[in-house]
């Protein structure tokens, strides 16, 4: 297009040249005919014609330009202007790139997690997750199969409701056993999500609750690729899961990883594939409450209507089976972006706040770049005024300047796009190794691109158009006059510059305060008393369940493991547990003191963990009353449990809990001990009652917990080897020091403080350079005035005071505004803080001091320079 039009332009230019040549030829011919010599005739003709290039140029103007050509001209001009001041161009572009990139990176993380809660699902906005009972931060699966089925079949507001339960399992049958995350799902699971198989089929309604000798399985795409070599003919073939033969019936499409946000499911089977879980399928309470439920709203139905519909149904269910539904049974619905099940509960609490911080950084950067732009425009004022008096209309000038701003921000946007395509993928790095199949990462799709475009546009507007409109508003004559009369750059620009500096300080203060609070929180978290000793502890998971061993086999293997690992050199104590604290996971169960009749809507949920003998000893959790578990608390022995202080106070306030009985899963457990409270999920939790049960009675997963003499990591290979010596097919995984595992509990605090700290640092640098730039510029503009003052007898200290005072005023106003802003912002993050109040005076005071000192320091250098100027040369410098 451009090539074509410039080709036409060239042709017209040649024609004009020819036309002018013809004109000259004819003039010469006439003159020669009148008797002049050819030489004299040529000279006279040329003289008569005048300035040929000028004629050509003016004629070119007449051809007119399309808006595109005009834009191209403006574009080239803007490019030339930017190239003329590379310092400005590079600085502004780099700053804007960093600021836009901060926004787009955080947004890409939100996009990849909260905005794409279930990759591959159709219309994820219509999906809601169902929660029964109390809302909590990381709830356990809330529904039994029968309750779920009643809700699914009797509701009037859902297009479909699915249910699933997932856990680790071992894939056997290959050369190497491999752990995979398997989900038991309702038959409509894929339908409700809107997923189509790439091979074969998904489950049929009649398969849902039936057991089969050889059950059907659906493979996830990546498992199909990695373990089964992307076998196109796999449908109908048998594979082995936990030593059971199953038949592959289908393969899920690429990218789909299941219905729980942030968690990767590798393969899917029906709810009771072997028919061995009949109890679970036919009861409504206790261990039969095991399903996570997600529903798809019918078109036009609101979440509130749906919740009401389900509440009515649930009410009927509770009325029909009151003993199975003690406690709170209200149903709440959450959109998937903030579903409490999976990662999004955490994401929703963290990422939007970080995005807000990034937004502040962008504003701050725009203010900084606008300052630079304004200073630059002021120094170009003369050029602009001359162009204006030569006939460029005001709109053209504004367009010119806006175009320069737009080019800067577009360049920054493009650079940010390139950087973000990499940084979006760094989200996964933030998570330490852990036992969950976490599938969290940023994503780079059209939404991020739109986000970058919007941010660039905003930046372009703020740092190009704003100063442009202000400058161009000034009438040309006045500008020209002002240029010669006043040295300080006109009061209108001075006011705008001051406002920009104030804005930068006011914006960076809340960033600094918030990051200060986050850092203090992090330190408080690290220094908190957890109630257990995590150093010198190694944990190793053994994939006993889900690998196809019988109960008796399991018990034998567990005993052997304990014997072997205990005997290893460097091992002080070996014990078992089926839960590691502070790993974002917990198990919950309803528990009632024997004979206690709960009120309706009263949930007596407790956390529970199954631990072996010497568990408390290893972790140095004091047993306040009674005893620890012993090897005699085994399957055939009476059921016993140890409660923590919170549970003891809750169930038997003011009484001796020892010997009391607690009903869990419908059977009585006798309290044999009281343990001191310790941290379960995260440091800043509200303590939930915890009951410990004997590992050898009801233990489920097998985690070996080893107390070591030295560094626990050194013992890891020996422990692994010892377990493999018992059975080479035993999967051993998640072998790591406890200190490493518990990092998961503070990971969001780390992410928050790391990013907020980074943003705050950017803010601090920008604010300091911003105020330095403006004060230096204004001082330079006042060189003459200062020279006069000194010549008239002002001392150097007076000069210093003059310049410093000007900076101090700006700083003061900025700090005051920033404090007000910070007060609002800290209220938003109050919920994320630990051990420190949102308005912590020490943090606020130190931030104000730091920022104030930085600002004054930034003013000091220009002040010193002004002070040292020789007044004579300063006056002459005019």
């Amino acid at each position: 297009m451009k090539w074509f039009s410039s080709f036409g332009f060239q042709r017209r230019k040649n024609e004009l040249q020819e036309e002018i040549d013809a004109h000259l030829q004819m003039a010469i011919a006439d003159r020669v005919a009148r008797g002049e010599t050819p030489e004299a005739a040529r000279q006279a003709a040329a003289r008569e014609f005048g300035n040929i290039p000028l004629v050509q140029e003016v004629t070119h103007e007449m051809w007119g330009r399309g808006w595109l050509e005009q834009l191209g001209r403006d574009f080239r001009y803007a490019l030339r202007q930017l190239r003329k001041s590379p310092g400005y161009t590079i600085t502004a572009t780099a700053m804007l790139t960093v600021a836009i990139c901060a926004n787009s990176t955080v947004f890409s993380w939100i996009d990849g997690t909260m905005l794409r809660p279930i990759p591959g699902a159709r219309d994820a906005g219509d999906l809601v997750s169902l929660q029964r009972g109390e809302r909590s931060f990381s709830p356990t699966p809330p529904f039994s199969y029968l309750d779920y089925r009643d809700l699914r079949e009797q509701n009037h507001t859902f297009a479909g409701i699915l249910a699933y339960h997932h856990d680790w399992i071992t894939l056997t049958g290959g050369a190497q056993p491999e752990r995979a995350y398997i989900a038991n799902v309702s038959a409509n699971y894929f339908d409700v999500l809107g997923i189509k198989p790439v091979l074969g089929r998904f489950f049929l309604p009649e398969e849902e609750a039936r057991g089969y000798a050889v059950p059907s399985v659906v493979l996830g795409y990546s498992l199909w690729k990695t373990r089964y070599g992307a076998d196109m003919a796999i449908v109908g073939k048998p594979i082995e899961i936990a030593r059971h033969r199953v038949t592959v019936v289908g393969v899920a499409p690429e990218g789909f990883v299941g219905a729980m946000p942030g968690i990767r499911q590798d393969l899917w089977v029906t709810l009771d594939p072997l028919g061995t879980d009949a109890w679970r399928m036919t009861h409504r309470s206790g261990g039969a409450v095991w399903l996570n439920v997600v529903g798809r709203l019918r078109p036009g139905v609101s979440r509130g209507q749906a919740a009401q519909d389900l509440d009515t149904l649930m009410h009927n269910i509770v009325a029909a089976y009151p003993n199975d539904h003690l406690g709170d049974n209200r149903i709440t619905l959450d959109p998937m972006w903030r579903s409490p099940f999976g990662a999004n509960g955490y994401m929703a609490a963290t990422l939007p706040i970080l995005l807000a911080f990034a937004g502040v950084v962008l504003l701050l950067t725009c203010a900084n770049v606008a300052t630079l732009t304004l200073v630059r425009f002021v120094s170009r004022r003369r050029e602009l005024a001359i162009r204006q008096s030569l006939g460029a209309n005001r709109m053209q000038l504004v367009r010119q300047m806006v175009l320069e701003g737009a080019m800067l921000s577009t360049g920054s946007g493009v650079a940010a796009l390139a950087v973000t395509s990499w940084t979006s993928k760094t989200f996964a790095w933030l998570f330490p190794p852990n036992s969950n199949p976490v599938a969290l990462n940023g994503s780079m799709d059209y939404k991020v691109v739109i986000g970058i475009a919007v941010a660039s546009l905003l930046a372009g507007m703020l740092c190009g158009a704003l100063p442009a409109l202000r400058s161009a508003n000034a009438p040309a004559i006045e500008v020209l006059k002002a240029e010669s009369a006043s040295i300080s750059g006109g009061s209108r620009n001075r006011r705008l510059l001051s406002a920009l500096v104030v804005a930068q300080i006011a914006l960076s203060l809340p960033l600094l305060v918030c990051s200060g609070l986050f850092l203090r929180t992090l330190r408080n978290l690290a220094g908190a008393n957890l109630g257990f000793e995590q150093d010198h502890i190694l944990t190793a998971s053994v994939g006993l369940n889900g690998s196809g061993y019988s109960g008796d086999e399991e018990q034998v293997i567990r005993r052997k493991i304990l014997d072997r690992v205990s005997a290893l050199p460097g091992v002080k104590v070996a014990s078992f547990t089926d839960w590691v604290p502070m790993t974002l996971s917990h198990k919950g169960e309803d528990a009632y003191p024997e004979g206690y009749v709960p009120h309706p809507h009263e949930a007596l949920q407790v956390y529970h963990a199954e631990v072996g003998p010497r568990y408390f000893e290893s972790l140095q959790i004091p047993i306040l009353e009674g005893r620890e578990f012993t090897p005699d608390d085994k399957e055939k022995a009476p059921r016993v449990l140890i409660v923590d202080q919170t549970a003891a106070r809750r169930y038997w306030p003011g009484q001796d809990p020892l010997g009391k009985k607690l009903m869990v899963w419908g059977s009585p457990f006798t309290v044999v001990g009281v343990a001191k409270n310790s941290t379960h999920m995260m440091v800043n939790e509200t303590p939930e009652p915890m009951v410990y049960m004997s590992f050898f009675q009801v233990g489920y997963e097998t985690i070996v917990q080893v107390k070591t003499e030295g560094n626990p990591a050194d013992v890891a290979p020996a422990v692994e080897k010892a377990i493999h010596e018992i059975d080479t097919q035993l999967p051993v995984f998640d072998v790591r020091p406890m200190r490493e595992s518990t990092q998961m509990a503070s990971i969001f605090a780390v992410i928050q403080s790391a990013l907020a700290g980074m943003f705050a640092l950017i803010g601090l640098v920008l604010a300091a350079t911003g105020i330095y730039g403006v004060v230096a510029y204004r001082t330079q503009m006042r060189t003459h005035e200062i020279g006069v003052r000194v010549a008239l007898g002002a001392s150097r200290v007076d000069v210093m005071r003059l310049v410093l005072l000007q900076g101090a005023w700006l700083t003061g106003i900025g700090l005051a505004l920033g404090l007000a802003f910070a007060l609002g912002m800290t209220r938003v993050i109050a919920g994320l803080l630990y051990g420190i109040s949102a308005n912590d005076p020490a943090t606020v005071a130190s931030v104000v001091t730091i920022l104030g000192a930085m600002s004054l320091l930034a003013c000091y250098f220009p002040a010193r320079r002004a002070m040292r100027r020789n007044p004579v040369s300063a006056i002459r410098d005019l």
Partner: protein
Amino acid sequence: MSEKDQYKNRIELLQGTLDMLVLQTLQWGPQHGYGIVQALRLRSGDVLQVETGSLYPALHRLERQGWVQSEWKQSESKQRARYYRITAKGKKQLASDLGRWERIVEAIGSVMYVKPEESES
């Protein structure tokens, strides 16, 4: 008369009258740029000297406005030149320009030749 004196007698063209003069010249037949300059000079008795710096931009502007059309032809002296020809639209424009011109001349004339006693009353 020396060439210098000749120049003195020429007058600057009034803004907007060049278009009209060019269109009028083309009424007598298609002409090239040099021809237009010569014709205007001859018809005005050497008074009107059109600057080439004004003529060519004007010609190109008139063409863009659709009042003239151009084509390349051989001149009588075998010189290839661009000939401009007035269009119907150009003729209409000329008529309106002429009307406006006459009104201006009349208006200026009635101001300049006003009788003294009338102006005092």
